[in-house]
């Protein structure tokens, strides 16, 4: 269970303090999926980064199974990212020096949860079997995103965070990728929090929240 309570975050810019999140509250139950929507600059990615422990909130609480992320040391946050979540980025962020097979298993092996059979299953489901010996730059955008999904799900994390995972893909490929993501998240028994601009894609998830000017739109929390 993920609980977000009154989370606030500001950035210091040349023009002064810029509040991005002005008190966000929501919950995500285990095994469910949630789409986080909103216009550019509404704070969606920032919220995702706070949950991933990539950044720290100014105030408020983020609880994972009742345990707060606040106050954790950097090493503990790194462990949370390694073992607690699977991250999928719009830009894929694969490790360019490693082959697809090594990229797929990378996080699972880091977390000490490498299950070769599960990784092979993922590769098969994602259609990556013929591409295992290739390097990321030898793949198309859709193929790279499928590798990123496989990498995120390989350790069977309790929570998958996806930041516009289909933002760089055409509509047909987006649908295919999202289908796979939802199926595999369900197979892994994970929860999914996905940031997206697309209402069409968001409608495929269990719940939807819309961020506007750093707050959840009334009635949607």
């Amino acid at each position, binding site marked *: 269970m993920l609980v977000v309570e009154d989370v606030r975050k500001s950035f210091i810019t040349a023009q002064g303090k810029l509040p991005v999140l002005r008190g966000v509250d929501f919950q995500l139950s285990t095994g469910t999926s949630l789409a986080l929507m909103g216009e550019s600059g509404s704070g969606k990615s920032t919220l995702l980064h706070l949950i991933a422990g990539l950044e720290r909130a100014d105030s408020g609480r983020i609880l994972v199974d009742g345990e707060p992320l606040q106050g954790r040391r950097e*090493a503990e946050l790194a462990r949370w990212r390694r073992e607690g979540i699977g991250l999928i980025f*719009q830009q894929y962020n694969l490790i360019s020096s490693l082959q697809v097979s090594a990229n797929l298993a990378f996080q699972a092996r880091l*977390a000490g949860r490498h299950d070769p059979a599960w990784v092979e299953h993922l590769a098969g489901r994602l259609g990556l079997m013929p591409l295992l010996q290739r390097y990321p730059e030898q793949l198309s955008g859709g193929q790279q995103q499928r590798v990123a999904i496989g990498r995120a799900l390989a350790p069977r994390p309790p929570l998958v965070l996806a930041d516009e995972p289909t933002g760089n893909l055409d509509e047909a490929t987006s649908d295919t990728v999202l289908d796979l993501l939802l199926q595999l998240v369900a197979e892994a028994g994970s929860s999914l929090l996905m940031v997206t601009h697309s209402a069409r894609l968001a409608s495929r998830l269990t719940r939807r929240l819309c961020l506007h000017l750093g707050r959840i739109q009334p009635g949607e929390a």
Partner: protein
Amino acid sequence: MGMLRISLLALLSHWRRHPLQFCSILTGLWLATALWTGVQALNNQARADYARAGALLASAAQAQLVARQGERFDQAAHVQLRRSGWPVSPILEGRLSIAGKEPSTLRLLGIEPLTLPREASIAGQLTTGFDLDGFIGPPGQAWIAPDTLLRLGLKAGEQPLSGDGQRLPPLQVQAQLAPGVIVVDIGHAQTLLRAPGQLSRLLLPKAFAALAPPLPVELAAILRLQASTDTDDLQRLTDSFHLNLTALGMLAFVVGLFIVHAAIGLALEQRRGLLRTLRACGVSLSGLIGALTLELGLFALLGGLAGVISGYLLASLLLPDVAASLRGLYGAQVAGQLSLSPQWGLAGLAISLLGAFLAGCSSLLRTMRLPLLALAQPQAWRLAQGVWLRRQVLLAIVLVVLAMACWWFGDSLLSAFVMVTAVLLTAALLLPALLDAALAVLTRFSRGPLTQWFIADSRQQLPALALALMALLLALAASVGVGSMTEGFRRTFVGWLDQRLSADLYVTPRDTPQALEISAWLSGQPGVDAVLPNWRVDTRLQGWPVQLQGIADHPSYRQHWPLLEQRSDAWTQLAAGQGAMLSEQLARRLKLGLDDDLLLPTDQTEQHLTIVGLYADYGNSKGHVLVDANWLRRYWREARVSTLNLRMAPARVPELKAALEQRYGLDSSRVVDQSSLKRWSTEVFDRTFAATAALNSLTLGVAGVALFISLLTLGQSRLGQLAPLWALGVGRASLVWLCLGQTLMLALLTVLLAIPLGLLLAWCLVAVVNVQAFGWRLPLHVFAGQLLQLGLLGLLTSLLAAAGPLWQLARRQPAELLRQFADEP
């Protein structure tokens, strides 16, 4: 013009956002130019001083009459020749010690301006134009070069005291005078040198000498005609020394250019988007290349200017050691102060421009050849990189063939240096491929995910770091090679000195009569076991200056004169006047070996001797032949005693030394004990290699800077590789350690390749370059401790180079890493 200006301004705007790259290119050009111009300044200064020494008595000294025996002769010969119509002009020269806080010895030259030919010049000044009365009449004048005056800490007009308390005439500065020389009227010189009525030589005008008139019979027994070739000899003898310095300067220059090449390459890669935009906006390819070239030219001028200034400072620092080496090795006087022409500065700027274009031309070519739309695709650049890598390997193969050809067929110092250069460039060109292969092997053994990433990411960094690692490889190999050669040479030299300098006391008499007198006196002294006179004749064999040394038949030579090759009856043959021994360098130069026939031109005829032995004669720039003393005196009337070697009870040395100095008026430089001579020889050796060691250290420093700049520049672009790892749960501290480990691993692999390359270089130096440059071949020694020390120094250099970029990485805010994932907050 407008398009060029706009393109140039757009290109220059890049540097505002990348000041570090700006500094990298400037630093590279600055260091490369500084080291090159510094070495050139040293060489130019030395050569200018040889020319000054040669021009000391320009056009007057085309030929000279010198004593057949000893260093001096009676001035009555001069008077007699003048009366017979010979237009001779007398010269007296000798060493004069000057008293002071730091006593030093100078060459005192006494001249007689009245008898010098009217067209002659002394130290660049016509004899017709100067103050004759002031020079000749009391108190006279003592001409001195400004740098010598400065070295002595004296001022013009002062009258310093000589070592034995005599006052010199007032000092007068002559800008063109050679360093280390004082010129006075011959009368003053005879007083100061305590040589009344004595002369060293008589100068003859060119035209008169060309007629080759016979000397009066009574003078032919005393004097002989000699062509003046000392200056030419100095140029020839020191050529190897200067070529060695030039080679080191060139190495440093090349290493500096690696920095420039790396920085320009990265800058072009980072600006490929801008290049595409400029092309898309209608800038022609030629306009773009023109703007890039102009930008490069601006860099070259800025870096070159800084380099020329630094080069001057560097040369000023190294000059005292170089001057001491030249003095010790060749007897050449080089000023301790730089005075360079504007042409030297302009040449420095030109070399900077050349270097910048050499370093930047590959990037310009790549820009020209890449298709317009592919400019912004990394894959296109990587493919281009791959093509260049293949070309590098092909070029390396060509260079290997060239090196082998130079080894087999080369017979000159130039071919030896071409071979060394080819070997070094081959290794540098092959380094990326070798490192990649080594990492590929390591990949097979890597198990954990981070280990796999560690190796794979290192391989990915190779293209960006390759040039800096090449620079490190070259600098380390040069350090290993030159270090092994120097240390090996040092040990060989010290061992050789221990054997060769076996006498307890060495006496250099003023002339042969004094030598015979001293010898007779010494025979009656208690504790003196043997007095061994060395007879000497200076001659030429196949145009090369050679010293013939005649020795007595004494067991100490058989026991202590180390021979490289010998016949079983070598010493017996030598004592019988049937054999001669040759120094190694002379044997190589004359292409003679054991049992070959040596033809020696004597006064009247030619004599044949069989070569019965070869010996090392380190440090002697002239050829050396050892023959029996009696045989030498029989065929050369001008043979003189150069030294007396005394074998005696060591405890009595100080007492006898003092007695000799007092009894025969010899200064301390003429009576030297064994330990002083060894100490002096070792000091000369160490100072000879001091400049080499300094240039080596600087080259390693430049390589460190190259690595530092590459890592720092790479650090900017590596965030994209490191951020995903951080996001996947690898802490920042771990990332820093991993990056440090990567740098050290690449440096370690480079060091491991540099050591065999350095040893190969050492072999090239001792077995090929030294043989061609000096004529002697040294045994190759491997010093494990030295290799370990240099290996650690290479790693330390890499560690220091990596420290800054890693410190930056450790201090990076998470927000900077986050920017890799999102464009919006």
